[in-house]
């Protein structure tokens, strides 16, 4: 979905299908788990990375209340997260909805400083670099949607 959008295929049937799937799987209180919203008796918990990815994928869609709830969830969660994968995807998701808080610069700096102590991880490095960009190449859609 992110790749098709990046190619300007926002109206492609598979993108529209993916949008419907994501709306179907958004949690009542905002955010996304991995798939289901409920298992037997309980509603599942949202996660920062999956919520960030879903928000990034939905960039450009109408800003319905579920989006606002999901942004609120991430805004509340991210300040305490130092893990590169979740922090980066969370910020990419917030940036897609122009909701990245100014404090995020210091969160990224803290995360990067801590990361130096760990094993090298190219995926995490790439995600942190993307999260640090003012305009994320994953979510910025080029002009001239080709309409599938």
């Amino acid at each position, binding site marked *: 979905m992110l790749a098709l959008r990046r190619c300007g295929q926002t109206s492609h049937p598979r993108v529209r299908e993916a949008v419907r799937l994501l709306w179907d799987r958004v949690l009542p209180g905002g955010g996304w788990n*991995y798939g289901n919203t409920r*298992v*037997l*008796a*309980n509603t599942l*918990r949202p*996660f*920062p*990375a999956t919520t960030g990815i879903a928000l990034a994928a939905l960039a450009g869609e109408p800003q319905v209340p579920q989006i606002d709830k999901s942004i609120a969830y991430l805004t509340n969660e991210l300040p305490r*997260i*130092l*893990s*590169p*994968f*979740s922090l980066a995807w969370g910020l990419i998701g917030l940036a897609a909805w122009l909701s990245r808080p100014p404090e995020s610069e210091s969160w990224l700096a803290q995360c990067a400083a801590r990361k130096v102590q*760990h094993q090298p991880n190219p995926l995490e490095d790439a995600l942190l670099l993307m999260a640090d960009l003012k305009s994320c190449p994953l979510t910025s859609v080029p002009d001239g949607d080709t309409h599938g």
Partner: protein
Amino acid sequence: MDDTGTAHATCAGGWKLSRREMLGVGGGLLVGGGIAAAFRQWTRHERGLRADVFIGKASDYHVDLAGLIGEGLKTLGITRRVIRGKRILLKPNLVETAVGQSHINTHPSVVVAAARALRRLDAREVIVAEGQGHRRDSQLVLDESGMGQALDGAKITFVDLNHDELVEVRNTGRRTSLESLYLPQTLLSADWVVSIPKLKTHHWVGVTCAMKNLFGVMPGVVYGWPKNVLHWEGIDKAIMDINATVKPSFAIVDGIVGMEGDGPIMGSPKPVGCVIMGANMTAVDATAVRVMGLHPYGLDYLTGASGWLGPIHEHNITQRGELIEPLKTRFEVLDVPHLADVIEG
């Protein structure tokens, strides 16, 4: 044999079946795993398999857990001679995290204590490894569970099994349709694999303990999150396949505070105050289920493993340390039809 030359099997419930009657129901036994399990329960016959299980009391996570685990190892015959020079992989249950829900995962104190006890027996290396079932971000789970800090403090390396190098091996269980399993190289290179689960109910299979905990060695990059391929194959069958193929060496169950109700992630804390240990996973799990006040013969993966991967009948398990009865604490289980046998037996 009776005086007519007919062999009888006397069942625990006092029933007697002649050989002819047994043959008559033979087809049913083949068809119905439940009937076969009931038969094994009545006859106590588990192909001669026996195992020892140790239960130790631990009122909370501040007691000398390394000492307790050391005592359990000694009682079960796991001496320095067995452990010296071995590379040991500890597999805790790290599923996901939520604020104030520390009972979801194996407590870090139990994992560190196990490492200390095994280091005292001259293990060459002790590492901790897990492939989280519900999250791709291992670092976040390590941070939020407190496991990362505890492992750093004890200088224990953590390996993310979801993203390890993979080796395809033959599925020796074949209860699922999978002919082979992809396992992490780190797991296969360990001399000893120790399952360190949390004592919890499970909303699909009834109880998750030493055997189910090994779902976490299956790499997410192959089986998805939450190991969807294995769920579709059937959780009970997958549990048996993984255990038959991985052949774990030992289990140390964190039963100090367990989880009841909608486990393995949404349930409530359940203090029990014990650690359960043993070299046979099925015997450890059957004992754990009894401590939870539930019925081992109500769990499909335990009845399936009975007489194959190990014993589950009390008669075939030698209890060491504390007795089950004084520690027995009834765990609430979701009131759903597929778990009725776990509650009622």
